[in-house]
C-alpha cells in the first residue's frame, strides 16, 4: 500500500530526473550536433573538458563565484537574521522585504540589474557620478563583471538564507540567553559564545545550500551578462548550455560537462548527509 502512495511521485521523479540523467550520462560518450545522430567518441568529451583552456577559465570563474557567494551570503544572512530576530516593530514587514527578491523571476532580476548597472545611463553610475565618483564598467570590465554577478546572486538569495537562519535563531532556548545576560554578558559576548555556536548546524545547512546554489547559478547571470565580459562570468552551467545549444552545437560535450557538475554537487550533498549523520550520532 505505501508504495502505491509514492508511485505517482516516483513515476514523475524517474521520468523527469532519473531517466534524463541516465540518458545524459550515456550521451556524454557520444558526439552529436543535432541530438538525433550520435557518433561514439569514448571518453573524448571528458578529455576535452579537462584539457580545454576555456574549461580551465570556466572552472576558475565558478570557483571564484562559489567561494565569494557562499562567504558573503552566509555572513550577511546571519547578520540580517540576528537583526530581524531582535526587531520589535513591523517584524512581518521587514521579513517580507528581505524575502521579496527570492520571489522574483531570475530572468527579471537579470534584466533589472542589467539596467541598474549600465555604465552610461544606469542609476548606480548616475548616483556615483553625482557623488563625484567615476563610471565603472560593471558589465564591461571582467573583474567588475564578476563582482556584479556575485552581488546580484547574494541579493537574490539572501532572503531565503536569512529566513532559514531566523528559524534556527528562534529555536534557541531563550533561558540560556537570559541567564547569560543576568550573569553580565554583553550582547557581543552572547552572540559570539552562545548564539553562533548553537546556530552552527543551521549555518552548516546554509553553507551547503549556498554552495549548491552557487554551482547551479545560470539564469540571472545569463540575462545580466550573458557570461561576459569576455567570458569572465561564464560559470559551469552556462558552459553546459553553450556547448549543447549554441553553435557549434556539441550535445556530447554539454552532457559530459553536466556529468562533471553532477559529481561536484553530489559530493557536496554527500558531505551534507554525512555531517547530518555525524550530528545525529553526537
Amino acid at each position, binding site marked *: 500500500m505505501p508504495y502505491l502512495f509514492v508511485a505517482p511521485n516516483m513515476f514523475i521523479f524517474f521520468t523527469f530526473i532519473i531517466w534524463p540523467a541516465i540518458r545524459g550520462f550515456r550521451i556524454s560518450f557520444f558526439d552529436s550536433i*543535432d541530438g538525433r545522430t550520435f557518433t561514439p567518441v569514448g571518453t573524448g568529451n571528458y578529455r576535452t573538458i579537462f584539457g580545454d583552456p576555456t574549461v580551465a577559465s570556466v572552472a576558475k570563474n565558478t570557483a571564484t563565484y562559489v567561494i565569494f557567494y557562499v562567504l558573503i551570503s552566509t555572513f550577511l544572512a546571519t547578520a540580517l537574521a540576528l537583526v530581524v530576530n531582535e526587531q520589535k516593530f513591523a517584524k512581518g514587514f521587514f521579513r517580507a522585504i528581505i524575502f521579496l527578491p527570492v520571489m522574483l523571476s531570475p530572468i527579471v532580476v537579470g534584466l533589472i540589474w542589467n539596467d541598474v548597472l549600465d555604465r552610461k545611463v544606469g542609476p548606480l553610475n548616475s548616483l556615483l557620478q553625482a557623488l563625484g565618483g567615476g563610471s565603472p564598467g560593471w558589465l*564591461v570590465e571582467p573583474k567588475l563583471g564578476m563582482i556584479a554577478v556575485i552581488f546580484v546572486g547574494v541579493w537574490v538569495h539572501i532572503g531565503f538564507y536569512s529566513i532559514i537562519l531566523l528559524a534556527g535563531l528562534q529555536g534557541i532556548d531563550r533561558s540560556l540567553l537570559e541567564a547569560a545576560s543576568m550573569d553580565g554578558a554583553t550582547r557581543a559576548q552572547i552572540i559570539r559564545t552562545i548564539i553562533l555556536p548553537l546556530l552552527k548546524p543551521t549555518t552548516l545547512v546554509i553553507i551547503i545550500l549556498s554552495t549548491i546554489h552557487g554551482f547551479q547559478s545560470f539564469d540571472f547571470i545569463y540575462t545580466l*551578462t*550573458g557570461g*561576459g565580459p*569576455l567570458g569572465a562570468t561564464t560559470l559551469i552551467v552556462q558552459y553546459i548550455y553553450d556547448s549543447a545549444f*549554441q*553553435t557549434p552545437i556539441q550535445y556530447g560535450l554539454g552532457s559530459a560537462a553536466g556529468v562533471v557538475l553532477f559529481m561536484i554537487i553530489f559530493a557536496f550533498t554527500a558531505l551534507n548527509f554525512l555531517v547530518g549523520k555525524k550530528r545525529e550520532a553526537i
Partner: protein
Amino acid sequence: MKIQKLRSKLAITLSLVLTAGLVATGLPAAHADTVGLKPTAAQLTAWKGKEITYYFYNDSQAELDTTKAQIADFEKLTGAKVKLDVIPYTSLDTQLQARLAAGNVPDVARLNNPGLYIKDSLDLEQYFSRKYAAEFIKGSTLQVTDPTTKKLIGVPYDLSMNGPIINVDQFKKAGVAVPTSWNWAELIAAAKKVRTANGTEYAFAMDKSGHRFSTVMSQFGAFMVDKNQKNVLPTSKFRAEKSLKMITDLYKADLAPRDLWIGTGTKYASPIAVFIGQQVPVFFSGNFNLATLVKDAKFNFQVVPNPKELNGGGWPGGKFLVAFKASKTPDLAAYFLHYLADAAQMDQMDKNCFWLPTRNDVVAKGVAYPSRQLDMSIYLADTAKTPAAAFGIQSVPTLTGNIYNKLRDLMTEVMAGKITAKQAIQTQTEFIDAQLATLRK
C-alpha cells in the same frame, strides 16, 4: 508637402524600375508551375480538421499580425487548423533542436539558419516539381538547397538587406546633409559631428552580429568563403583587418555602445532601443527593423545607402520557410509553406512589414509599400549593388552560423583590448579552415 509628394512619387517609380531591373539583369523569369496552386477536392477532404504547427518568430508586431490574418485565411481555404508557436528569436535554434531531438517536431518553421535542419527538412520537389525553385530570385535558394542531393528543402521567405538608418532630425540639427552616397570615413565623420551637435551618447551603433559586420568586410573587399566552399579570407586579410579595426575602434573609443556588445556575453544584441531613444544618430542594421521604427520612433528617420569602398551594396540575408519530414501531414505542411510564399501572401507581407520580396513575379511587379517607399528603394538598390562574392558563404549553409558567431566573438575580444584586429582575422582564418574540414570528414 509638395516636395514630400514628389519624393514619394519618385521613390515609387525608382522602386518599380529597380525591382524590374533586378529581373532584367540576369534573373530568370518566373515559371508558372505552382503559381495559383489550389488544393484539390481530395486534399480538402483529407485535410479537414487536421492541425499543423507553424514554428514562427517575428521582428515586429506587424509580422505577427499579418501572419495571424494569413493563417485565418488559410484555415478558411483548407478547413485545416494551424497552431502558431511564437518563439523568441534568441532561442529559435535552441528550442527547435530540442523539439527535433524530442520528436515534438513542428510542421513548418520560419528560420534564419535553415542549414542546420537540412536532414530534417521535407523535399519540396516531390510536391511542387523541380521548377518551383525557379520562382524565386536566383541565388536566394542556395541556403535551402540540400548540398548533397541538390533538392529544394525550403524557400526564401524574405530577403534582408543590411545598411545604415539615420536620425534625420539630428542630422538636420547638426547641419549635416542627408547623404546620398558616402564612404566609411565620411560616415564616421558625419556620425561624430551629429553626435557632438546633439549631445547623444554614441555616434554609431551596429547589431552585435558577425553577419552585419560581414557587410563592412565586403565593402572593403574581404570575404570569408567562396562559392566553391574555399576559405578566401587569407587572400583579403589586410582588408578584413582594416575594416575590423575601423569598427572596433569606434567601440573602444565609446563612440559606439560597447556595453551592449561586450556586456551581453555570447548573446545576440540589437541597439534598436538606443536608436529609438535618440542616443545614436547612425544605426547599422537592416530592413527588418523598419516596421518597428515606423511604430515606435518619435522622430524622422531614413535609410541611407551603404558606404562604398572597393564595393558598395550590402550583405545577403533573409529568412526561410521549411517544412519537416516528420510532419504527420507532410502534404498539408508543404501546401501551407507554398501558400505563405505565394505571390499574394508575400506581397501582403512585404507591404505590411517592409520586407524585400524573394519571388521573381513579386520583384517584377514591384511592391507598392504604403509608406517608406524611398527607404525600400534604397535597400533594393543596395541589393543590386551587392557583389556576387558576398553570396559565397551561402555555399556552406550548415556552417554559416558558426562562422558568423566566431567573428562576432573575436570582435568582442578586440573591443576589449584582449587581441588585435590582426590576431582576430588570423584566428578567424584558422577557425574557417577547421570548420570547412568538417565538411570533408
